[in-house]
């Protein structure tokens, strides 16, 4: 699904030169759930921008769903983001003036889908994250966990190749974060490729594979033999079932 080969990214020139990625290679196959970890300055954010097709590498290749997307122009890049990447941000990044349904529809609008097709796909995605009845709510009428689930619905609505999360639980309390992780695990079990960029070990513990970066290179790449099951943890918490289970 993702194949990054010898990717470098250098910011600036001369004395102010910063090497963010130093010839990094990474393969992620379909249906994987990978955590990308590392301290700040390790190149983790740069790698996320690269995977998300937001930035262009200085050198190296990037194949996404068998397409070379490392060196394409801005317009094509926007198309790739629209069709293949489902972004989930730490601060949700919903458009405040739009309803939940309209937010979920937005990528489909840029996709060029007609009104009825958009509604149908967006409604399906909202139902998938357990917010089928909240489509007409605006983001400020929803809780943080609900907002993040709307953002996840927006990311999955057009069935992208990968879900790319940037600290997706960073702005949530532990319980809601757990629910969001449970949702990611479910989506992964349904066959979606999930990449989470995080510095949170607990998030990483829920992934099948953990990649650690330092100084723009991968320093460790291990498969979690015993990954945590977010749903099971939720069941153990004080209120059995949790919100996700209830809503579904």
């Amino acid at each position, binding site marked *: 699904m993702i194949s990054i080969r010898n990717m470098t990214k250098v910011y600036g020139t001369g004395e102010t030169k910063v090497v963010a990625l130093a010839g990094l290679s990474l393969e992620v196959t379909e249906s994987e759930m990978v955590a990308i970890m590392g301290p700040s300055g390790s190149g983790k954010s740069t790698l996320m*921008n690269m995977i*998300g097709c*937001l*930035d262009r590498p200085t050198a190296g290749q990037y194949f996404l769903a068998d397409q070379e997307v490392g060196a394409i122009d*801005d*317009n094509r890049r*926007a*198309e790739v*983001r*629209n*069709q293949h990447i489902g*972004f989930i*941000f730490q601060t949700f*990044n*919903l*458009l405040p*003036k*739009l309803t939940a349904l309209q937010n979920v529809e*937005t*990528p489909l*609008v*840029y*996709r*060029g889908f007609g009104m009825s097709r958009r509604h149908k796909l967006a409604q399906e995605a909202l139902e998938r994250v357990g917010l089928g009845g909240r489509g007409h709510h605006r983001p400020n009428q929803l809780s943080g966990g609900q907002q993040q689930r709307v953002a996840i619905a*927006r990311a999955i609505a057009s069935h992208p190749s990968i879900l790319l999360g940037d600290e997706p639980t960073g702005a949530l309390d532990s319980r809601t974060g757990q629910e969001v992780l449970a949702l990611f695990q479910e989506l992964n079990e349904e066959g979606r490729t999930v990449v989470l960029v995080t510095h949170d070990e607990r998030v990483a513990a829920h992934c099948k594979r953990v990649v650690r970066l330092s100084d723009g290179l991968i320093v460790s790449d291990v498969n979690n033999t015993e990954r945590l099951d977010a749903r099971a943890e939720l069941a153990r918490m004080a209120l059995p079932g949790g919100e996700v289970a209830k809503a579904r």
Partner: protein
Amino acid sequence: MIFTLVESIRVAWLGIVGNKLRTLLTMLGVIIGVAAVIALTSVGQGAQVQATSQITALGSNLITVMPRGNGYRIEEKDLPELRAIAPGILYAMPTVTAGQQTVKAGGDPVEVDIEGGNADFLAVRERQMATGSWYTEQDVTSRRRVAVLGTTTATNLFGEGASPLGQTFRVLGQSFTVVGVLESAGTGFMGQDQDDRIYVPYTALSRLMGLNRIPSLILKTRSGDDSAVVVQQVTDYYAAKFRNPDGIRVQSQDQLLETVNSMTQIFTLLLGAIASISLLVGGIGIMNIMLVSVTERTREIGIRKAIGAKKRDVLLQFLVEALILSVTGGIIGILFGALGARGISAVLGFPAVVTSSSVMLSFTFSMAVGVLFGFYPAVRASNLDPIEALRRD
């Protein structure tokens, strides 16, 4: 993969209604600009309509002959010669005017314009008598002090309902006898009363004023084509007489209309140009607000780009927003301009004509302002780097 125009409008509309006060203030510049263009050009157009109707109200197919300087004179004896060389002349009427003379009959004295003409007046001016009859050729040649009154003057001098026929009044130290009253010509533009006038034989008026020449001569022909021929013949006649083609001005009504029209057109353009400046300022206001809007919505732009908006999608969104602002402002401005034109015409008694061309022009202009001043902010928005934009609060 086209982010359709409809979607741009929808998105832009959400942005606009989300901040109503700012939207209104932004549009205000364009509203005032367009309203000013509409109202001011309507005054210019009104002036044109007024001038045209005043000229044509004097009668049709008329030619005015006037000396340009002291050395050139129109004399009594020219008339038969002119008729001989220009057979197209239907009527020839010497005209003398004496503005605002004190006239006294039985009651209080009144100030009235006095016009001297000849027996052809009714035919030349295309007017009708209400009572009595116009003075005769005999009256003119004998310089008889007889007068025809406008209806307003008749009432002012002799009272409502009383017959002025056979009555006398005094002006310039002489006594005149009323022989007729003209039918009303109605109120002219700017509330000017066209019926407040006294008409006397020009010979009698010339003598009272001590004139020994004809100040101006009015010729009437059958048609506009005849007028053109006669203008040339009369011009040639006086050019030969004074060895100077410019000594006497011979101007047909059509020529006069042309001159007046070109003058009022310049007037209209000038007013429109002045008003356009405020429209331009309104456009700068739009640009200003759009730039603020782009800065404020940097994060939104970042989100949209991250989820697949292309440059042109973002460009279109902000351009459409600027266009909606300017076009809505333009439409409101047209309405206010039309109201303003009505107001001007009501207060000043001046006709204000809102033409479809001025509406179209200012509408197009406001649209152009939207595109022109919305383009730079839209380009700025579309060129934002999504990573940078997402980092912004």
